[in-house]
């Protein structure tokens, strides 16, 4: 234990010296890596939240089947039986014309007074179908809607899943684009760490030569640069997470104030412990990768 300490102490001391004696290089490097890591954090945060919200919306699949005015009881009964036999349908509710008007009044609130002046109720009766998200997906909703549209007694079928499908497709595209984006930012980060280490090597070439001459091994010379790379990666990813958290908090409050009716803000979540640790690990790995990229310059000493 004591021998390990005696071995590591000068390495940490050299790392500290490297960082302290080249503050500008390190500051620039950490700043640029922080920006790259912040973009990565925002991307992961945005994607994970959007994916979760869309997934909640996708599980809330509904179809509204509007019925023709004056539909007879026999036709209504046949239509209900048809809906009952559909595998994708968990349950359905019948909403009469009167109930539809009441619901509409509740939605309009204070602005509903004009409805009292109407000569007759313009709203149709409907069947509201709730689909099983385990069985049905967005494509099934469209297929079912087409089938229902063909039934006698059905005036119109409405479903909200068309835009949801578009949103889902968009999210898929964002996911694949995001991988490229993340790979690009990671490469940029590795390149920055490597360049910083190389700049530091040029600045310290005479010191490295002295170290070689007084008997330092290659690992003794190289390890402080590995620690420097890890230091930059960890500090930058921690700062990026800090900025991302602050930004996330502000965005959530802004969204809650600006669009409370969407109920999106309460569903937004920051990284949990595991993604947080993985993100810090990513910073560390990028720091090590930067060191490895520059290690051949260290070998040249």
């Amino acid at each position, binding site marked *: 234990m*004591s*021998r390990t*300490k*005696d*071995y590591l*102490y*000068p390495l940490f*001391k050299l790392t500290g*010296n490297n960082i302290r*004696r080249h503050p500008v290089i390190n500051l620039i490097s950490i700043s640029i890596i922080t920006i790259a890591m912040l973009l990565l954090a925002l991307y992961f945060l945005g994607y994970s939240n959007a994916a979760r919200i869309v997934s909640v919306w996708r599980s809330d699949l509904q179809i509204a089947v509007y019925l023709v005015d004056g539909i007879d009881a026999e036709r209504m009964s046949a239509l209900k039986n048809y809906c009952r036999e559909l595998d994708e349908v968990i349950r359905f509710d019948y909403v009469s014309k009167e109930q539809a008007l009441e619901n509409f009044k509740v939605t309009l609130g204070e602005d509903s007074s004009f409805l009292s002046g109407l000569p007759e109720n313009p709203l149709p009766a409907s069947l509201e179908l709730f689909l099983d998200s385990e069985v049905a997906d967005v494509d099934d909703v469209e297929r079912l809607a087409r089938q229902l549209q063909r039934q006698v007694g059905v005036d119109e079928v409405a479903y909200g899943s068309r835009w949801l499908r578009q949103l889902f497709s968009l999210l898929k595209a964002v996911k694949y684009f995001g991988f490229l984006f993340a790979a690009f930012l990671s490469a940029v980060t590795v390149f920055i760490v490597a360049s910083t280490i190389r700049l530091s090597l040029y600045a310290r070439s*005479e*010191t490295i*030569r*002295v*170290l*070689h*001459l*007084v*008997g*330092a*091994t*290659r690992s*003794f010379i190289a390890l402080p640069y590995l620690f420097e790379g890890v230091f930059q990666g960890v500090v930058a990813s921690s700062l990026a997470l800090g900025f991302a958290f602050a930004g996330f908090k502000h965005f959530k409050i802004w969204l809650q104030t600006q669009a409370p009716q969407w109920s999106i803000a309460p569903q937004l979540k920051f990284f949990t412990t595991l993604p947080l640790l993985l993100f810090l690990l990513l910073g560390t790995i990028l720091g090590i990768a930067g060191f490895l990229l520059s290690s051949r310059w260290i070998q040249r000493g």
Partner: protein
Amino acid sequence: MTGPLYGLFSQSWRRMISVSNLNKSYSHPDMVLKDVSFKVKKGEFVYLSGPSGAGKTTLFRLLFADLKPDSGQIEVDGLDLMRAQPSRIARLRRRMGIVFQDYKLIPNYTVFDNVALALEIAGTPRRLIQKTVWQVLKVVGVERQLDRLPPQLSGGEQQRVAIARALVNDPQLILADEPTGNLDYEIANEIMNIFNYINSQGATVVMVTHNRALLQRFKRKVFYLDQGILQAYVWPD
């Protein structure tokens, strides 16, 4: 003769440096060193002398594998430098003390840190470093400059710090390239006294110098290089 007793009869255990048929050239066709051979026994103090451009510094650098020869053999403290792995060479350098004409101190390290570095590289326990560094700085007479940076010191003081760094690991071999080259008469004498003291404690010393006055004042065996050829052993009058 072969077998386990070979070492006793060959007396190779008494040899610190053995150089044979060494040739070295740089990019131009003229050889810097031509078929150089010599031996240095353990505990000896020898000079490597000659005019400027004779190849002294090249030979000096070959002795700690800072350069590779074109051909020939170099053995230092039992290690064949032609075949040794970099890690073995690093270990050998930790067992020797090297003093450079231009000191080679790290300018932004304090005197203490410059000297302690050699101990840290050798893996000396931290609790021993402080005391050892102070003791060696006292031997060379710069213990009061502990916290100063090399650029804040005079040439003589910097050379003493460089000598302290070379001595701090208690090496059995000291290589010194013109250690008095930039110093005045008085300080050069003091530096020579330090090397004589180290030698009297049992260390082998190889000192490169072109200063004939120094050779006269402190008489030792001299290897004289001229135009890349080790011409003769000279004992100054």
